[in-house]
């Protein structure tokens, strides 16, 4: 039986018995901890989630890393059907021949709702966010982003492409796909060299080109010819496959372009696959990142429509001038 103790003495006794690093290491060894760390990294891709308040430059980096919402836009179209070719080059060449520019009629706005999902849902890491963007034909847009597990809504007034993204896309565009691939990779290398934080994630060339193409498809001012050139450039990527008879995650007929890549930052991690689902006019319906073995990790799925107006509360929050603005509330 212990004699009467003061509260302070009791707490000191408790604190004296706290686990110390050496005793923890006996069971929770550095090797075991590293195993858990790699298990975590094997289930992730790119970089940790960036702040919603970060710069547009980081938003670009995140997009390239495949973790930011890739707004995928284009006018609502009916797919033109199978292109019916055997090789990626032939399939994409046929698809490119159907490429169209996005047209937004006077007085209308292109509304794109993008649902970003991280699987498995219902777990601590799983969840979703929804980004709604209203595009005007001058390249400026308004957007709202809400997370499934947070009450805040982020409002933005911006252009697409951003200046940082535009730096990756050659202007004027080269005349042929091979030159375009080379130009994008050169610009990507320059960008990485001049933006040290980005060195945290240096995508392989194949992913750069696929993501830049994806981003260019978003630009309402990208011409049909440039869209066609970008589509044809995808055929030149290593490890690219094309399925002309695929369906996107919503079951819509699509041409699926898949690019396998390894994350250079985690050479031991499983190979990943970046998939673009294009409709018959070469506009993006959805994209996904999958882990090796077919495990699904993230997806961005879009729904497009033409609307007459932008919600008043969105305009009131970020304005309608040609000035970038972001507000989270």
């Amino acid at each position, binding site marked *: *039986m*212990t*004699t*009467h*103790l*003061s*509260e302070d*003495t*009791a*707490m*000191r*006794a*408790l*604190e*004296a*018995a*706290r*686990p*110390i*690093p050496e*005793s*923890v*290491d006996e*069971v*929770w060894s550095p090797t*075991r*901890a590293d*195993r*858990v*760390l790699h*298990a*975590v*990294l094997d*289930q*992730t891709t790119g*970089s*940790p*989630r*960036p*702040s*919603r*308040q*970060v*710069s547009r*430059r*980081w938003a670009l*980096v*995140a997009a390239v890393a495949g973790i930011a919402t890739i707004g995928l836009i284009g006018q609502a179209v009916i797919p033109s059907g199978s292109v019916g070719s055997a090789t990626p080059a032939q399939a994409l060449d046929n698809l490119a021949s159907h490429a169209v520019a996005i047209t937004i009629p006077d007085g209308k706005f292109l509304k794109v709702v993008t649902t970003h999902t*991280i699987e498995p849902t219902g*777990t*601590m*890491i799983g*969840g979703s966010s929804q980004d709604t963007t209203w595009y005007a034909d001058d390249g400026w847009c308004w957007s709202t982003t809400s997370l499934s597990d947070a009450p805040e809504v982020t409002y933005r007034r911006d252009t697409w492409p951003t200046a940082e993204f535009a730096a990756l896309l050659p202007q004027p565009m080269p005349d042929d796909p091979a030159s375009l691939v080379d130009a994008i990779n050169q610009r990507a290398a320059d960008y990485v060299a001049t933006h040290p*934080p980005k060195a*945290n*994630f240096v995508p392989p060339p194949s992913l750069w080109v696929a993501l830049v193409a994806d981003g260019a498809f978003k630009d309402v001012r990208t011409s049909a010819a440039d869209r066609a050139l970008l589509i044809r450039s995808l055929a030149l990527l290593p490890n690219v496959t094309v399925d002309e008879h695929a369906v996107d995650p919503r079951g819509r007929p699509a041409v699926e372009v898949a690019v396998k890549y390894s994350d250079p*930052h*985690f050479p031991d991690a499983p190979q990943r696959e970046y998939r673009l689902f294009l409709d018959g006019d070469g506009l993006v319906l959805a994209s996904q990142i999958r882990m090796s073995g077919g495990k699904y990790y993230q997806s961005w799925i879009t729904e497009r429509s033409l609307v007459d107006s932008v919600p008043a509360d969105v305009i009131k929050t970020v304005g309608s001038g040609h000035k970038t603005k972001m507000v989270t509330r």
Partner: protein
Amino acid sequence: MEHPPGPDDFRRLFHETNRRVYAFVRRYATESDCDDLIAEVYLAAWRHFDQLPAEPLPWLLGTARKVLANHWRSRGRRQRLAVEMAGISQLATADCATQAVDRADLVAALRRLREEDREILLLVGWDGLDSTQAAQVLHCSPQAARARLSRARKRLAECLTEAEPVTQLQLLTEAN
């Protein structure tokens, strides 16, 4: 421009905190379950990297608490308490007992405490959190955490006064 978070930042976070997260999780889970549970905590940290405060430990422990709650949801309370006490018994440093209290008495006293008292005492006494940080883990106000800690300190002192040793055999029996 503020340095954006990158994989190296995440690795640094992991290396700086994983021992303490383990020490927390092990209190409430069997050794064999710890790895998966800790991985789930850090997966959440990856996804919510933007929400991590400068001192991330309370956030990590609060997340671990939720992960553990899910883990135990389908299991019995008795089993959970047995595992908790076995974990505490394993983690309590054997040679650090004060002259006033020996380790066995301390473990016995913790066993007698109410769960909510034991939880906040260990957050403060073992995890090194202050009452405000403990409040973040427990999802209560700092005032409520301080009041809860004050009551728990008093009860710990009472339980230590009344403590009778619990044998290792009892703990192992409860855990299995």
